[in-house]
């Protein structure tokens, strides 16, 4: 370790620029070698330069890091990097002492392409799934007081969802939170928008809407911070991001997913026409119910009456039967009579008195 000398002015220690830079450079050189991910921009490579320079940009918030690499090493990698390409750079920080410029000295560079992205997403997906973030399927309210809508300020997506909701249920109240839905500011902005809507007391459900876009455009919707915010949302949340074939992780963390604006509307508001129709049906049933009761009771009464009529003694007499009484009591067996007994016979119409001539068993 180089000794950094300082001049002494009374009780003040003062370093020369050179000594200071050397000291910092020495300190930096002891930091570990690491991998850093970012997008390549401003690549500068010239035959007469010993090093190749580029800026590594964080796609999340746009933070920049100057990177240098010896030209011969860079050329040997044959990467043919284009502007905006995602790379992983292996290296360590260093200070260019002559200028006091801090930069990242690359030892190796690897392209981090779509396949790598997908693999990283897959790892994140497994990790969050293991935490149970994708298991929440709360029922959506049937009559939300207000619907929160998180959407970009691009007209199409917002209008599509709003139109779908108000067409289905005209009295719907929708609170719109416009925000960035792509680019480095999207994730914190959407997280904040969701949080803001959650603070409104009458928002009972939230729709997170974003039209279709490229894989890169939809990446914020697979960002761990946003996915966690969706999973932790106070009210049920519907993910209406991209098209059917896209499957951002917010879709998995949300309580429901909608592949189109009209599907989203169907999930969050009731169908006014259907409600009206059902109300009319109920009213019709209400009107019919009392008469049905009367009819049912009447049917039962008529049934009982039929049985009563069949039992009527006069009906039996009409059919040719006769009632024989002895001293006012009905005779049911020939054993109750003998020759000469006086009996009274009643017919369907009228009757007569008689005397028994003979009895049979």
């Amino acid at each position, binding site marked *: 370790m180089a000794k950094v000398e300082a001049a002494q002015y009374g009780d003040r220690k003062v370093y020369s620029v050179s000594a200071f830079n050397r000291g910092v450079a020495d300190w930096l050189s002891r930091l570990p070698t690491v991998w850093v991910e970012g997008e390549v921009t401003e690549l500068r490579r010239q035959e007469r330069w010993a090093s190749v320079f580029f800026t590594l940009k964080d796609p999340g918030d746009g933070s920049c890091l100057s990177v240098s690499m010896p030209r011969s090493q860079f050329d040997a990698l044959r990467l043919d990097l284009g502007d905006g390409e995602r790379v992983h750079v292996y290296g360590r920080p260093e200070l260019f002492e002559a200028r006091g410029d801090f930069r990242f000295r690359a030892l190796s560079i690897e392209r981090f392409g779509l396949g790598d992205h997908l693999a990283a997403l897959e790892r994140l997906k497994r990790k969050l799934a293991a935490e149970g973030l994708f298991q929440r399927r709360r029922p959506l309210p049937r009559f939300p007081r207000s619907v929160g809508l998180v959407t970009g300020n691009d007209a199409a997506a917002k209008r599509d969802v709003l139109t779908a909701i108000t067409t289905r249920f005209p009295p719907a109240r929708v609170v719109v939170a416009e925000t960035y839905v792509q680019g480095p500011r999207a994730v914190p902005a959407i997280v904040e928008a969701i949080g803001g809507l959650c603070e409104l007391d009458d928002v009972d459900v939230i729709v997170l809407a974003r039209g279709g876009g490229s894989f890169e455009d939809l990446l914020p919707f697979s960002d761990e911070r946003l996915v966690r915010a969706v999973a932790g949302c106070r009210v049920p949340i519907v993910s209406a991001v991209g098209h059917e074939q896209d499957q951002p992780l917010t879709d998995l963390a949300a309580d429901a997913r909608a592949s189109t604006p009209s599907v989203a509307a169907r999930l969050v508001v009731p169908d006014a026409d259907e409600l009206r129709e059902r109300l009319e049906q109920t009213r019709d049933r209400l*009107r019919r119910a*009392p*008469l049905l009761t*009367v009819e049912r*009771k*009447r049917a*039962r*009464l008529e049934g*009982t*009456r039929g*049985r*009563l009529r069949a*039992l*009527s*003694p006069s009906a039996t007499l009409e059919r040719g039967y006769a*009632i024989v009484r002895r001293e006012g009591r*009905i005779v049911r067996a020939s054993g109750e009579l003998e020759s000469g007994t006086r009996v009274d016979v009643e017919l369907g119409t009228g009757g007569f008195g008689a005397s028994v001539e003979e009895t049979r068993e």
Partner: protein
Amino acid sequence: MRFEEAQRELERIVQQLETGQADLDDAITLWERGEELYRLCSDKLDSAQGKIEELGRRVEAVKPAEPA
């Protein structure tokens, strides 16, 4: 007499007659009572139906115009 009471008594009479246990004089008395109960029930149903229909017509008359 309430409709349900009359109906219950009527049904009890019919059941009693159907078993054939009652002697004839009782049977005739029961039968006459049954006919009386039937008329009572039937009148009550007629009057209930009349009231329901009347009410239905009145509700229909004050029904508000359907919103467009």
